[in-house]
């Protein structure tokens, strides 16, 4: 076991990238992800990695170059946030459609307008259906661990899909937390060397990437993509278990916290889960059977496993750090409800929208939510299925 250190989420991501030693990093500055590339550029400048840096003139070009570099036949990593991810949006589908295992750190940040640099999940939630794998991290430790595992998951020969490792902007990216690295040589061995698959630079076997595929075959390609996505949860679990042997920290599809015997539970992702766990501990001390489910693998969404984990509850609150305007509910809520909707016995499920644009998530928000769930579990009617919390008016 390595010793405890203090690091920010961005340091954690950059360090995992250093250990993975990508062949190419292509990126563009944006708050709060910028610092990842500051730190990583230092590694490159000092020869600690063999990475070639491509410092593009926009996120659109950064991701375009990631696609070119990955197709060429090597390991590729990048990082972004918010507007940067939004500008990449067109290319996200191309990266996944070409089955290119690009690894991207995403420091979650609100979207304009109004412009705001604080944390929420609007950016990566807006990219949830673009064919990438998405992992979410509660703290610096998870950001580091997820980033290391991300290379293994994305580059797995049965997967070959791009992956986003999300962490909360500022709350995690810029906060110093206690965490542990892993033994460097063991980490390098865990990530392993890059395995090529149809490299563009193989001039002896010329390949055409990105052809025109019309209505005669397009749908078959889309179905194949979905079938590949279906294999991902199993591989995420295998990699998570193997990482556990290396680090002492195993990872699955999601974290269940005091959930097995719970009657009420909160489902929440990323940093807010930490605050929520503290509140749950205090409610448990009062004899209230409260628990938490923290999704880790959000795309592909492990519907069946999450259904089994939540099915026995009486009432569940899904906390979304973004909203899906016009869809009635937040994106995480819609996925949780979908996972349970065909079950004969299921909990009452309510939706809270919280923490947008860096608004603090406070323990009292978890308390009020749990109090409401307890009342619902005791038979009280649901006043409103969806509610903004921690908000004026």
């Amino acid at each position: 076991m390595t010793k405890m250190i203090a690091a920010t989420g961005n340091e954690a991501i950059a360090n995992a990238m250093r250990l993975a030693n990508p062949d190419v990093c292509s990126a563009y500055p944006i708050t709060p992800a910028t610092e990842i590339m500051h730190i990583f550029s230092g590694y490159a400048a000092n020869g600690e990695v063999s990475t070639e840096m491509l410092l593009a003139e926009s996120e659109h070009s950064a991701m375009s170059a990631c696609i070119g570099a990955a197709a060429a036949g090597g390991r590729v990593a990048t990082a972004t946030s918010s507007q940067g991810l939004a500008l990449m949006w067109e290319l996200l589908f191309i990266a996944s459609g070409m089955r290119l295992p690009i690894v991207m750190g995403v420091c979650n940040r609100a979207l304009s307008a109004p412009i705001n640099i604080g944390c929420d999940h609007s950016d990566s939630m807006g990219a949830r259906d673009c064919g990438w794998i998405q992992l979410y991290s509660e703290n610096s430790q998870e950001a580091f661990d997820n980033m290391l595992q991300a290379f293994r998951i994305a580059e797995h020969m049965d997967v070959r899909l791009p992956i986003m490792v999300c962490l909360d902007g500022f709350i995690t990216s810029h906060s110093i937390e206690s965490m542990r690295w892993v033994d460097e040589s063991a980490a390098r061995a865990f990530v392993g060397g890059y395995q090529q698959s149809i490299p563009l630079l193989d001039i002896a076997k010329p390949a055409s990437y990105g052809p025109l595929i019309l209505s005669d075959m397009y749908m078959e390609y889309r179905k194949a993509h979905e079938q590949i996505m279906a294999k991902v949860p199993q591989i995420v679990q295998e990699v998570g278990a193997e990482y556990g042997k290396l680090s002492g920290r195993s990872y699955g599809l999601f974290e269940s916290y005091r959930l097995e015997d719970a009657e009420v539970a909160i489902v929440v992702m990323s940093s807010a889960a930490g605050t929520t766990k503290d509140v749950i501990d205090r409610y448990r001390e009062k004899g209230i059977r409260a628990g938490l489910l923290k999704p880790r693998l959000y795309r592909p969404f492990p519907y069946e496993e999450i259904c089994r984990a939540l099915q026995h509850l009486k009432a569940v609150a899904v906390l979304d750090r973004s909203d899906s305007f016009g869809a009635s509910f937040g994106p995480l809520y819609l996925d949780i409800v979908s996972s349970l909707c065909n079950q004969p016995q299921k909990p009452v499920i309510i939706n809270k929208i919280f923490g947008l644009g860096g608004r603090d998530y406070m323990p009292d928000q978890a308390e009020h939510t749990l109090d409401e769930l307890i009342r619902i579990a005791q038979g009280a009617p649901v006043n409103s299925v969806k509610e903004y919390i921690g908000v004026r008016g």
Partner: protein
Amino acid sequence: MLTPLNLKELSKQPELFAPGHRMCTGCGAPIVVRMVMMAAQYPLVVANATGCLEVSTSIAEYTSWKTPWIHNAFENAAATIAGVETMYRSLKKQGKINDEIRFIAFGGDGGTSDIGFQSLSGAMERGHDMTYICYDNGAYMNTGIQRSSATPFGADTATCPVGSESQGKQQQRKDLTRIMAAHGIPYVAQASPNHWQDLMRKVRKALDIKGPKFINIISPCNRGWRTKTNDAIQLSRLAVETCYWPLFEIENGVTSITVTPREKKPLIEFLKPQGRFKHMFATENAWMLETAQQHVDACWDRLQREQTLFVQPGTSE
């Protein structure tokens, strides 16, 4: 051993751009691409912006590209090939690849001067070892002949149509070749498929120079220009002879005109055969012909003066 630039020897070379693609009859672009690919004496990796060339040469499960080829999106051929080239440098540095490869991006004028301009400018500034080739047919032909910043003054297009209140495109074209030269890159050139040896020599020169290179090549489009399907080469010749499309290169900042027309023909000889300029020949639009001619004259005059800046005293003809 370089293949000499004569038809007999070139015809013995294997084609890297296969027939059977779906480009229109009489299109200039596949002619340009064949010349470029044939000129290259290195293994190539090619990136292609979305456009006529891309959609017509990669209809799955077929491809015309006998070299590695990647199409990413419309506006990012430069960034894409920059990514490929960066990976090449990385793998080469690490001893994981030994081949001597050259990198080419093809884009139409829309994908280059307009939507792909930022991507191109960024790649040039970063100094990637790549050659960007714009085949300029002067409009968004793939989507149905809409104006681009490369559309010449006066042209009738689907989005600047001739009507009772408007007489085609009212702006001069963006001078992309000069804009690329302003990036201070080691080699910029303008070429035309009618002067095929000049074109191929420029491609060879570009591929032998380290760093970012840009070549702008005129590429007649009979659909958009409203011309016949057998006159692409004749029209590209007229473009050169009228000095609408001068053939020159700027190597390390030094401008040289590579083909000087024996007699500079009036611009109307280039405009007249093209239906897109038909309205300009109406009596009331005489001003348009004058404006177009004046612009060509001014550009040609400036180019000649630029060239003289670099001629040493006593060496001029």
